[in-house]
């Protein structure tokens, strides 16, 4: 999530004070991405510096910010651009499994089963939140939850795949290559190019 672009997108609706902008952003994302005021102020400063927003002094009241034409163009481009999936992230599950596979003392099947249960438990909780979000206004929130559910689902599928490979005795540490979109990538394995392709699918 790019907070910078997200704040700019909210600002395209009307000029706002910094605290107002933070409130509006958090309301729309249902506080899934809580921001502190300092972060908002710094981001607004950088948007002004880049010519994407302007500060509008308002007498004694706090400064209001409004988006510039360049800022609007930036937001339009952002809506249509795919999120960057190529950046490898550290991912505990991948690291743990790779290490477990290399250690004959570790019950890899149990590691997988426990992780799977935990991930599924998280999916159950997310689904419960989705069930409770029934108002028309909740659509954005439901889709955000779906995004997290799909990401967790990808991890479960990947764990099933690893389990199958381990059961067949074919998995070697170097072969572990997570494919979960938005989740694990690059922590254990080697071939970042392939991960990027998988994430893009």
């Amino acid at each position: 999530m790019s907070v910078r672009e997200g704040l700019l997108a909210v600002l395209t609706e009307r000029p706002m004070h910094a605290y107002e902008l933070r409130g509006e952003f958090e309301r729309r994302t249902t506080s899934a991405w809580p921001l502190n005021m300092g972060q908002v102020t710094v981001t607004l400063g950088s948007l002004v510096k880049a010519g994407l927003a302007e500060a509008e002094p308002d007498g004694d009241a706090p400064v209001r910010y409004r988006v510039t034409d360049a800022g609007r163009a930036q937001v339009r481009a952002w809506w249509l651009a795919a999120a960057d999936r190529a950046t490898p992230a550290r991912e505990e599950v991948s690291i743990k499994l790779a290490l477990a596979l290399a250690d004959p003392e570790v019950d890899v099947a149990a590691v997988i089963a426990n992780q799977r249960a935990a991930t599924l438990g998280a999916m159950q909780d997310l689904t419960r939140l989705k069930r409770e979000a029934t108002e028309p206004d909740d659509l954005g929130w439901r889709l955000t939850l779906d995004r997290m559910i799909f990401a967790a689902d990808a991890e479960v599928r990947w764990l099933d795949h690893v389990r199958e490979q381990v059961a067949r005795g074919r998995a070697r540490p170097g072969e572990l290559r997570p494919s979960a979109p938005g989740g694990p990538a690059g922590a254990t394995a080697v071939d970042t190019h392939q991960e990027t392709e998988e994430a893009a699918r």
Partner: protein
Amino acid sequence: MTAGDAVVVEARDLVRHYEGVGGEEVTALDDVSLTVHRGELVAVMGPSGSGKSTLLHMLGGLDTPTSGTVTVTGTELSGASRAQRSRARRRRIGYVFQDLNLIPSLRAVENVSLPLDLDGVAPSEARDAALDALREVGVDHQADRFPDALSGGQQQRVAIARALVGPRRLLLADEPTGALDSVTGEEVMRVVRDRVDAGAAGVVVTHDARLAAWADRTLYLEDGRVVATSETDRPESLLEGA
């Protein structure tokens, strides 16, 4: 769950052996226990051959365990005669399958009332109960249509209505949304969830974790044994750093 909640189905120490090809013994289910209360939905997952369907068949009285017991709303299926089991199935247990759910030559309402008809309930009473069940899943306006004239999602709703018509309180489902697209599949799970919340109990076998996530807990089977049960976390902690 509190101790006061009614147990709808209880399976204790279920073991099921089969004779495999060549006469060797195959263990399909190895010491599995499961209790499902009213208002509770349980998902069962696991790789092919892990015993998921065997477990579902045991819970529904379609198969009998080598050892162990299954009790549905107070009646032990394993100790019952074939006729008693069959009656218990008709009165207490409903199945939802991926396909072949409905009889094509019967209207929706007739499909739903069928278990009651077979059980000797008066036709008008059976029809009223069937209409109630269809209303609860939101397809009562389709009551007089034949299955062919219904969408896949509507057919599954009718199947859910049939599974929980009249006194039936245990819904057993095997890949209930298998042939449906993602959004329709989710709508069907929402209906299952609502019906369970309204006082039934459900056990759903699925390979799809997103469907299993509608359950209160998930058993994961491997080689006939429960190797993991999903835990729940506090939702708030999941959203940090999202």
